[in-house]
């Protein structure tokens, strides 16, 4: 049985561009670690300000103002780290970037306006405090929050499309447990379709489904689409490509010197037109769950961070300090928000996310559950495989205990995600439950006594780290589990990669640099913003 290190190495080396993927993961995680506060802190600030408007208690205004000061610079840092991530994607995965710009640019384009809304209203919220009426200021806060979430909604739609495009149909039957490669539905322009030979197409698993005014709807197996996409971006002509093998001989000859990329472009562009240029990414089956779960993660991390910060303040402030009452109130507020957020994450959006993955990415679902003889899954380790995999998961994923979850080993090998996601997923679930318990204990302690005990405060102070780890693991499962695909059913990792991959040492150097910067950022925050307080400065 492979160990955890072997499985990590399998993820790194078993798929193309391991070190490029590692660097991307680190770069995007740096961005996400910061971005969560841009998505979460405005909600907490607006809630605190709304309570202030209702109660008139100045503690709430103070809390709201402090949170606003926090996210004013966090936003700037987030914008800069976003630029760095964006350039990273362009440099390492230019073919994916080009495809995204060509076919699913619209949400990215809308994000421009989301960004501007964000930046304007976040800074207005910061600068206009005391210069506009209270209600107007609250409204500005709501608009700042709307801008941030709008921005998240756009980029998450693109990511969801990459996970499960609307025109790619997963091929798993939970009633029988049978798996087949996903099918890709393409609106092939009539002129191009005339060049195809239906019999040859059928021999490779393709089907002509229906005709319309300017198209023939064709179903192709994902393996063929992946190969064609790879050849297109590698500069093949039609004559050199697999397309020639499914074309009528005279058409293959006539198109022999035409770049395959231009033919595929006409097919994909037509498909996008029919699916909806403005809406295609939002039709991804995993989109709604992704949006709710990701925003929920950001709110959860933000609430735990605020809770942790005020726990530290309470731990380090003498009992007779006049600020103590304010710290207690802020701590309680953050603890309640954290509890609500983590509960929704665990039982509501988390479940919806899992069910969506089971339906639209059965291969990833199989890897997450570790339904393979190659490893000892965690349910098997505790001798609960029958219960977890046989009853509980089928019920949660498919709504029936008689359903069957996909077997990893039955999936064709070149469609399998890395098995390490099983351990990451279950670690995430375990730590998520722990996080929920921390919030629950904090709230329970506050219900018993206005002054939480030291152990609860210490636990709360450590909780932001835990929240970050859980959030990171969620994304790690999602993104590592997307392999071998860049876009599920359409483009693989090798195709998205730059033709000039940087040397490994450069990739590792940049990765180490980013990790060092993030570590330095957190160390500085801890040492100078929190610990310094202890020494009385």
């Amino acid at each position, binding site marked *: 049985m492979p160990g955890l290190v072997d499985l990590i190495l399998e993820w790194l080396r078993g798929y193309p561009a391991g070190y490029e993927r590692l660097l991307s993961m680190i770069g995007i995680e740096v961005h996400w670690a910061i971005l969560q506060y841009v998505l979460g802190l405005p909600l907490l600030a607006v809630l605190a300000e709304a309570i202030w408007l209702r109660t008139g208690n*100045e503690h709430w205004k*103070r809390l709201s103002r402090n949170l606003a*000061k*926090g996210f004013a*610079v*966090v936003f*700037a*840092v987030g*914008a*800069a*780290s976003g*630029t*760095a991530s964006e*350039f*990273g994607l362009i*440099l*390492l*995965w*230019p073919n994916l970037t*080009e*495809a*995204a*710009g*060509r*076919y699913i*640019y*619209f949400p*990215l*384009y809308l*994000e*421009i*306006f989301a960004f*501007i809304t*964000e*930046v*304007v*209203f976040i*800074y207005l919220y910061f600068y206009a405090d*005391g*210069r*506009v009426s209270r209600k107007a200021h609250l409204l500005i806060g709501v608009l700042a929050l709307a801008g941030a979430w709008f921005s998240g909604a756009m980029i998450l739609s693109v990511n969801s499309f990459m996970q499960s495009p609307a025109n790619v149909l997963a091929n798993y039957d939970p009633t029988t447990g049978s798996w087949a490669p996903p099918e890709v539905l393409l609106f092939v322009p009539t002129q191009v379709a005339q060049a195809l030979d239906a019999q040859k197409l059928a021999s490779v698993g393709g089907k002509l489904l229906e005709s319309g005014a300017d198209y023939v709807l064709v179903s192709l197996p994902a393996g063929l689409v992946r190969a064609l996409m790879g050849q297109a971006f590698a*500069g093949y002509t039609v004559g050199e490509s697999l397309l020639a093998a499914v074309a009528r001989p005279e058409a293959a000859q006539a198109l022999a010197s035409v770049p395959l*990329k231009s033919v595929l472009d006409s097919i994909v*562009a037509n498909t*996008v*037109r029919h699916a909806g240029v*403005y809406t295609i990414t939002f039709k991804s089956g995993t989109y709604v769950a992704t949006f709710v779960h990701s925003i929920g993660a950001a709110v959860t991390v933000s609430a735990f961070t605020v809770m942790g910060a005020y726990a530290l303040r309470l731990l380090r402030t003498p009992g007779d300090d006049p*600020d103590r009452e304010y710290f207690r109130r802020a701590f309680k507020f953050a603890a309640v928000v954290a509890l609500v957020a983590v509960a929704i994450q665990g039982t509501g959006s988390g479940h919806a996310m899992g069910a969506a993955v089971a339906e639209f990415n059965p291969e990833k679902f199989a890897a997450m559950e570790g339904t393979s003889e190659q490893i000892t899954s965690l349910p098997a380790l505790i001798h609960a495989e029958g219960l977890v995999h046989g009853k509980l998961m089928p019920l949660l994923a498919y709504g029936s205990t008689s359903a069957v979850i996909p077997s990893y080993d039955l999936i064709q090998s070149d469609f399998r995600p890395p098995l390490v996601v099983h351990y990451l997923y279950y670690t995430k679930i375990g730590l998520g439950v722990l996080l929920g318990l921390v919030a629950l204990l904090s709230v329970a302690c506050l219900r018993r006594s206005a002054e939480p005990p030291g152990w609860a405060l210490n636990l709360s102070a450590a909780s932001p780290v835990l929240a970050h780890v859980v959030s990171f693991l969620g994304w790690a499962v999602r993104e590592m589990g997307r392999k071998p695909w860049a876009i599920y059913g359409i483009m693989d990792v090798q195709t998205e990669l730059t*033709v000039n991959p940087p040397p490994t040492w*450069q990739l590792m150097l*940049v990765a180490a*640099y*980013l990790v060092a*910067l993030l570590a*330095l*950022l957190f160390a*500085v925050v801890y040492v*100078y*913003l929190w610990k*310094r307080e202890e020494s009385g400065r």
Partner: protein
Amino acid sequence: MPEPVPIVFILSLAFGLHIALVNLDIGLATLIPIMKRVGERREDEFLVRRAKNLMRYYAMTYAVAGVFGTAFTVALLAFYPAFIGLAGHLTWVPFGLAVLLIALRFLSVAGYWYLWDRVSSGIHLLIGAAMAATGILIPLGFRAVFAFLNAPFGLRLQPKPHLILGEALSNPTLMPLYLKSVFGALSTGLFVVASAYAWRYLRTEGELRERYAGLVKALLPYGTLSLFLMLVFGFWYTLSLLSVSQYKFLNIFGGFLGADPTKDFSWLFLVKMALVAVQFGVILYVLDRLLKGLELDDRPMSWIKTLGPAALGTVITGELLNMYSQLPYFVARPDLFNMLPSWVVSALSVDTVNPLANLPGVYVITGAALTPLLAAVAALIYVATKGEPEDLEGVSRQREEMAAEGGEGQPEVGRTGGDGGSD
């Protein structure tokens, strides 16, 4: 305006705003640590508080610049995906270096902001120096790409498209373009701040007026020197264009030389030079008064107010001129195109617009969304700059309010008191 008009307009708007703010950003990032250090050495609380107030605006400038930079890149990706894809394959080193510096920069900006008064003055200065240095160095990576677009030094197409780094960095247009940009940014930053203080001078009564006048007088010589150096390097850049990119050179200067440029943008060059002339006119006027032993009173201060807008206008027109003068190509060497494969030539043409993005709906949405948002940006600038005059001790209304509520000049964790300024 060149074709295709709506796309070039959208790109120009995003790029123009980005560039204006980035120039301000570089100037502020350099000025603020110096200003604070000088204030500390002279034990001049007023100067230290001015530096801190500039830092508050700098955070906004930095963020808005980042947003419009991203907007420009995303718009470019939507309309010209093949060009972005091609650029991605070739520019690992120059863009990669820029990314490394951007990452270091956001750490230094956040550090400088949050650690104000929390670390020793020396350490804070070091962080400020990193903030200034990264601000000045980030454009090097971007300018390397712009230089490549002037003339593709180091490009090889066989066995696959790739870049010979040494050759790319030896591009004759790189150094003058970079140095011109840096000094242009410094003069812009310094003149905008000088204009703001001149404006403050005119709105303030009493002792504070002299302090603002002193600041203006201190900033103008450095701004002038930077402007002069920008012109020197600008001239060098012109000569380098003449040597390696005559297409671009002729589109800028051909109108004056009786040549027949493909796209005549000599008028835009004239606009830029007129804005430079305004700046030198004001400087000469101020210099004349000082040489005559006259003080900088209301009249010269009114003129100095125009320096900032003129400087911003100069860098914006300069950047747009640099961008437009190579149209309709992304690389200003059409004479080389017959050696390139057709897909590369297509990717390098501004006329090759993504058909899925070149839709009326996209332009309608852009107009409908941008108009109110730009109005909101204007409102933000108005609110952010609408401060209260303050006395020499810096006890502003805002600070009094904060003190009454418990005093919060920093985020709650570890706060050490507010700065209170509002100019």
